[in-house]
């Protein structure tokens, strides 16, 4: 009985995770420029990987595997924002202007805050 519940919940987590991965990919294709596409990739980075790793944890709830998966999860949560930040910063430094809804917002926001 316990086995069935574990298997079903693990399958649900894996399915949601896969759906979120696909969503991230679709978002990368649909959004207009690099910065908005990075937000779509963020879905794959955070919740999708967390869901898939949780699903895998439920596959084998006893043993060292679960702790290793938790370590992988924590590592991704530390590393992926750093990588996104480096990417965004590199794009800005190389002069890629983000596509903004109201073009005045960027300059206005900058000068009013500083």
């Amino acid at each position, binding site marked *: 009985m316990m086995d069935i519940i574990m298997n079903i919940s693990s399958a649900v987590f894996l399915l949601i995770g896969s759906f*979120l991965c696909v*969503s*991230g990919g*679709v*978002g990368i294709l*649909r*959004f207009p*420029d690099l*910065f*908005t596409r*990075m*937000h*779509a990739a*963020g*879905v794959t*980075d*955070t*919740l999708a990987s967390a869901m898939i790793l949780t699903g895998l944890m439920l596959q084998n709830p006893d043993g*060292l595997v679960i*702790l*290793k998966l938790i*370590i992988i999860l924590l590592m991704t*949560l*530390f590393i*992926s*924002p*750093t990588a*996104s*930040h480096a990417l*965004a*910063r590199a794009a*800005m430094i190389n002069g890629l202007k*983000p*596509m*903004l*809804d*109201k073009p005045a*917002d*960027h300059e206005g*926001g*900058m000068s009013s*805050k*500083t």
Partner: protein
Amino acid sequence: MRHTVYLSLMLAIFWLLNSGHFSLLMISLGILSIFFVLYIAHRMDVLDHESQPLHLTLKLPAYLVWLIKEIILSNITVVKHIWFDNKAISPAMQVINISQATDVGKVIYANSITLTPGTVSVELEGGKITVHALLSESLKKLEAGEMDRRVTELEK
């Protein structure tokens, strides 16, 4: 000294979790590696409150729970925009003031902003973060400052 003890404890746990073997050979190899890493860390002079934020250990779990809730909510919003109305996005960029005093606090805040989908911190300088957002509402939410307040509370 406190940091050395903490680091060696962490390394020992990490080694045991990853190997799972308790034979004499493996344990002695592990102890050897731990001493080697400690030696390198001392030579590089990286053992301080920044690499070992001990003061955060007790407060971090509550913040992580709140952050995971925020991550799930903003994921749902972004996925909705991906599938249903990807024309209705309003990309915006703004400088946001931060109230953290220490570098560790600032980094935690900037990383939390990037970790929630829909907002990416592009630049962190002094007391200001430049944030790019998929929806201008999420910038307003950041300006309201709930996340900022929670990270500042971590520092105390």
